[in-house]
Every structure is written in C-alpha cells, then in structure tokens.
C-alpha cells in the first residue's frame, strides 16, 4: 500500500472517509454507494459504520453498567467493578460538567451531555484501533454534533427566557440606552450577536475535527518517515515517537470528548442565565 513515497496521499486516504472498509489480511468490504433520499446521497460510509459501532458500544456499556449498578443497589451493596467505573465517569460528567455549568437545570440536560460525551469518546477511541476509523475526525460528523448542540442551546434558551428574553439575546441594546442610540446600537450589535451564536457550534466543530485529525496526521507522518528514509534507525525513532503520540492521542480522545461536553454545557448555561 505504501510503496511509493507519496506519503501525503496515503495520509489523506487514511484519515478521510471512504466507501471501503478495510479488514485484517487485506480484506475489504465495499459499501453501497447509491442510497439517495430527497436528492441527498446517504450511502453508508466507513465513518457511518464506525459511528454505528461506537453507538452500539456506548449503549452496551451504559446499559450493562446501569443494570449492574441497579442490581448492586437493590441488594443494598456499594457499586463495584465495571459498574462503579462507568458510574464514576457518568457522575463526573453529570455533576462537574452538566450541573456545574448549566446550574440547577443541569439535571434536565445531563442525559444529552452524557450521551454527547460518551459517543464522542467512543468515536475518538475507535480511531486508535488498528484498521479503525475516527468518525469525529470528519467535519460532517463534528458539524452535525455541533448542530445538535446549537439547536439544544437555542431551544433551551428560548424556553428558559421566553420570546422577549430570547429576542434580547439577538437584538442587543445596552441597558439605559434610548431613542436613536438604542436603534443604532441594535443595528450594530445584532449581526455581532448572531455571529456570536454561530461561532460557538463552528468552534466546536473545528476543535474536535482538528484535534482528532491532527493527531492522526502526526502519527501517519511519523510512520511515513520510515518509508521515505527506508532506514531501520529512523524506524526505531519513528516507532518510539508514534508510541508516545498514541498515548497522547488516548489522552486527547478523553480530553476532547470532555471539552465538547463541557463547552456545550457552558453555552447552554450562558443562554439559560442570559439577561
């Protein structure tokens, strides 16, 4: 596969989406390419498949942990083992991410934030497996996730503030201003407020995508050095660096899932308490 020194092309091929899923021993599965709904090509791709795998794993994890925790609770025992580990993460996200940043309404949003965190985490981690792919290293995926965050932020803001209060978050007039000044300020500030609203999901999209893709680029570039130089010495150095990068990627996988969930919570909280 990596015969030629065209490492850039290999890196792009490896990190981009594809209609082909690669398996060990050079086996491949070709996915259908002709699914169209409302004129949009919705053929499943590699990232779709890995997203579904991630979703299934998340569901199994949470469902199994929930069952275990519930059973231990019924028996009047303290949580233990796998259930306790998942519970600790769930509680951390619920208490220190959702409730801490959204406020007293945080419990309502906790399931969404938790799902976001675990789904992104599993997508990130799947990319670290051999033959795996990182759905969160795709702008469409991170964009769609940010879109759900955007909708959640705006809808929750609308419901918390009411139509008038919500309108104030778009047409901003500094308090105490009247007459022409107020109109002028509203005229100037409204585009800024709208941009402010749109920048948040855009930042979420790019941050997750860039972090996941960049890590893979670095790893692949380091591995590419081996094929460019064709030297055992370089190979040893590259492998050492790649191992280190892999550990860093493991950290980044958790960190980015945490940051996405945290920022979404912060944005929801900001809207809830906007005056």
């Amino acid at each position, binding site marked *: 596969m990596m015969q030629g020194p065209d490492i850039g092309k290999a890196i*792009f*091929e490896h*990190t*981009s*989406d*594809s*209609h*082909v899923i690669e398996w060990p021993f050079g086996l491949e599965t*070709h996915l259908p*390419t002709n*699914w169209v*709904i409302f004129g*949009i*090509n*919705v*053929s*499943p*791709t590699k*990232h*779709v498949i890995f*997203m*579904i795998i991630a*979703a299934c794993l*998340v*569901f199994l994890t*949470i*469902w199994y*942990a*929930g*069952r275990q*925790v*519930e059973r231990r*609770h019924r028996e009047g025992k303290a949580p233990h083992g796998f259930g306790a580990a*998942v*519970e600790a993460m*769930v*509680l951390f996200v*619920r208490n220190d991410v959702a409730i801490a940043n959204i406020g007293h309404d945080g419990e309502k949003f*906790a*399931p*969404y934030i*938790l*799902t976001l965190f675990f*789904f992104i985490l599993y997508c990130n981690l799947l990319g670290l497996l051999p033959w795996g792919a990182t*759905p969160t*290293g*795709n*702008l*469409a*995926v991170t*964009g*769609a*996730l940010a*879109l*759900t965050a955007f909708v959640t932020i705006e809808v929750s803001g609308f419901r918390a503030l009411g139509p008038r209060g919500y309108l104030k978050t778009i047409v901003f007039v500094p308090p105490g201003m009247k007459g022409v000044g107020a109109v002028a300020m509203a005229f100037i500030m409204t585009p800024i407020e709208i941009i402010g609203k749109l920048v948040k999901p855009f930042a979420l999209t790019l941050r997750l995508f860039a972090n996941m*893709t960049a890590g893979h680029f670095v790893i692949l570039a380091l591995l590419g050095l081996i094929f460019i130089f064709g030297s055992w010495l370089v190979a040893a150095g590259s492998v050492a660096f790649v191992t280190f990068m892999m550990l860093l990627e493991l950290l980044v996988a958790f960190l980015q899932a945490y940051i996405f969930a945290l920022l979404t919570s912060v944005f929801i909280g900001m809207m809830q308490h906007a005056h």
Partner: protein
Amino acid sequence: MPALLLLVQEGEFTPFSINTGLIFWTIVVFGVLLALLWRFGWPAILKTVEDRERRIQQQLEEAERARAEAARLLEEHKRTIASAKAEAQEILARAKAVADKERETLLAKARQEYEQLLERARQEIGAEKEKAIEALRREAVDLSIAAASKLLEAQLDSETNRKLVMEYLAQLEAGRTS
C-alpha cells in the same frame, strides 16, 4: 467497474470534504443513541445514584437523630442519677436527724426514770428509817416501862425515881428531834 468507483471515491473524499449524507447519518445515529439511552441507559444509573444519595442522606439524618436522642437520654440519666443521689442524701440526713431525736428522747426518758427510781428509793429509805425509829422508840418505851416496872417493884412511889424517868424521856425526845 469497482476500479472506476474507487477512482470516484478518491476524488470524492478528502479529510476536509463535507459529506451531506454523513451529517444525516450522524444526526440519525446520535439521535437514536440519545433516545435509547434516555429511555434505557441513563435512568438506571442516574435513578440509582439519586436513590443512593437519598438513602445516604437519610441514614446521615437518622444517625444525627439517633445521636441527639442518645445525648438526650444521657442527659436524662445524668439528671436522674443526680436527683437520686440528692434524694439519698436527704433520706440519710433525715434518718440521722430522726435517730438523733430518738436518742435524745430515750436519754431524757432514761434520766427521768432514773431520777424517779432514785426518788422512790430515797422515799422508801426515809419511810423505812421513820418506821425503824418508831419501832425503836416503841421498843425503848417498852424497855423503859419494863425497867420502870422493875424499879417500881423495887422502890414504889419514890419521887426521885419518877423524876429520873421523866428526864430520861425528855432526853429521848430531844435526841429524836435533833
């Protein structure tokens, strides 16, 4: 044909391309996951945790209540013991006072009886003495009379003798009164 498809794909996908279909899929997959977890996943963990939090809170409150109750009981017991001690002290004091009074009266009575006994003994002695003196006097008179009769037999109508007897009698009288 597969080769052609691959070519198309290579043209189609780069790390920076945005595939509308993938947005659709992401929303569907995420939405389904969210719905499933909302229904079957999170409640199990979150309800359990909340339940446990409630239970622990309850146990803490119960422990606090039990502690307060124990403290209250301890206080009550202390008070009871203190009052019992005071009562015992009081009973002891009263008993001592009663015993003192009893002893006092007993002593007084004993002294009184002793005085009475002494008095009676003295009276009896006096009476006995009186009686003895009376008896002695009668004996003396009898003796005198006997002596007189002997004298009379010897020398009747002797004026001097009569005088002598009278003097003697007067002497006796004087000795008695003295």
